[in-house]
């Protein structure tokens, strides 16, 4: 029991530190890239090429007043940012970052834990993440926050179904609920080629789940000021901000694992360390696409969002699951 706990503790620590650094520099990367897309320069004052900008932002947020509105539900108001962040971090527990490898004479997997029902775990954990936002909207006791919170949770619930069905077709194709098994099943070809429809549905619903452009209606300033974030400031705001960016990384990691072959790539069996490089490159590419989309697409209207989710993506993903099931049954 003890060595297992020590191993898990070390892996979790590394994971959290990596995600914190990733979050900090993702904010800078996004600002720089958006600036490039718009032919601006972007942040370049703090440190060389603006590399110390995340640090400056963090210091600024620390010194902001931590304000709780008088009629807010204090306990829930404080808990909401945490409830948003924790499920986001929990997803990374089952994502394999690389194959099995020997480190200092100790054979280990680059994955925190490889549960049998990893896929179910992912779907379950993402379904909880809607609570933080709903609670934030409600606890603030502010009409903009409440409307933003309700709008966000309605959006997440609507797109969860189609996303779940896209994952079901992945599970049907690979025949396993274990996340490492799904990656290993892609040795002969990435699932994006076998399941292109599921990949597209997963990408679109993923965008909606993490509320990125063009689905960022939650933060439509003209209608809702800042949505559920309206009353939040200082470190509580920073926690929400962090969970948004960690969600971007999480989305990239899930898309990579399910459809882009995870850590697989040329020579990965000879040099297992390469797996981490491939994984990081694929996730980085997907995050670049997310930022690119934000710089390109206008925000869609709320009724368009709902009709896209319920009338297009849901039937399409259902048909895809049925088609996959028939093919799997016939070839088995």
């Amino acid at each position: 029991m003890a060595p297992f706990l020590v191993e898990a503790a070390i892996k979790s620590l590394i994971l959290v530190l990596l995600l914190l650094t990733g979050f900090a520099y993702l904010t800078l990367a996004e600002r720089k890239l958006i600036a490039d897309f718009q032919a601006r320069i972007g942040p370049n004052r703090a440190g060389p090429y603006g590399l110390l900008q995340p640090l400056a932002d963090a210091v600024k947020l620390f010194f902001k007043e931590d304000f709780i509105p008088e009629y807010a539900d204090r306990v829930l108001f404080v808990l909401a940012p945490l409830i948003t962040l924790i499920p986001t971090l929990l997803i990374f527990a089952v994502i394999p970052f690389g194959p099995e490898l020997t480190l200092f004479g100790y054979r280990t997997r680059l994955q925190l834990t490889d549960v049998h029902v990893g896929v179910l775990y992912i779907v379950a954990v993402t379904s909880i993440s809607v609570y933080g936002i709903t609670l934030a909207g409600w606890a603030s006791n502010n009409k903009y926050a409440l409307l933003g919170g309700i709008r966000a949770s309605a959006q997440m619930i609507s797109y969860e179904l189609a996303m779940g069905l896209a994952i079901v077709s992945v599970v049907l194709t690979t025949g396993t609920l274990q996340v490492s098994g799904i990656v290993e099943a892609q040795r002969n070809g990435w699932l994006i080629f076998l399941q292109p429809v599921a990949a597209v549905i997963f990408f679109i619903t993923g965008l909606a789940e993490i509320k990125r452009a063009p689905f960022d209606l939650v933060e439509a300033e003209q209608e809702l000021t800042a949505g559920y974030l309206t009353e939040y400031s200082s470190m509580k705001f920073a926690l929400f901000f962090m969970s948004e960016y960690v969600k971007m990384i999480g989305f990239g990691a899930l898309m990579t694992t399910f459809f882009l072959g995870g850590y697989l790539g040329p020579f990965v069996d000879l040099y297992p360390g390469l797996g981490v490089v491939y994984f990081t490159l694929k996730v980085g590419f997907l995050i670049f696409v997310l930022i690119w989309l934000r710089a390109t697409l206008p925000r869609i209207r709320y009724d368009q969002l709902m009709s896209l989710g319920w009338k297009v993506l849901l039937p399409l993903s259902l048909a895809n699951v049925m088609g996959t099931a028939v093919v799997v049954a016939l070839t088995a």
Partner: protein
Amino acid sequence: MTLIQAVFVLFAILTLGAGLFTVLSRHLFHAVLYLILSLVGVAGLFVLLEAEFLAGVQVLIYIGAISILIIFAVMLTRGMARNPGPPLNNQSLAAAVIAGLFFVLLAPVIAGFPWPQATQGVPADAIEALGRSLVDPNQFALPFELASVMILAALIGAIFIAREKR
């Protein structure tokens, strides 16, 4: 007391305590949140019993879907979310007595029941066996299909009721 037993006691207290607060909470919104906490405790107990699949489904369906609907219902019903009525009414004493009597009746039955002792752990292919039993005509295919038809009927009914009147 072993580690497993300690964890069991922890989850049992979480489940029962949150259940108690669900009933006693003055505020309907808080009652729903305590209910969710209680369901989390049940999911923890499932994990402790090595039934990871059930734990996942418990979180996905009860916490991720049903409770969020209850929260929406509370939030969107006018006055309900902001009206902390008294948690106890004049029937609470009678209810407590009846519940207590019911417990006295049940406790000896539960204590005396010859519960089967699991000799081996959960088999590795438990999920596959579960899936197959749901489509096996000799096992649960009929109840499974009946439940599906019922859910479909409820879905169509919900759409019919919610549809805008022309």
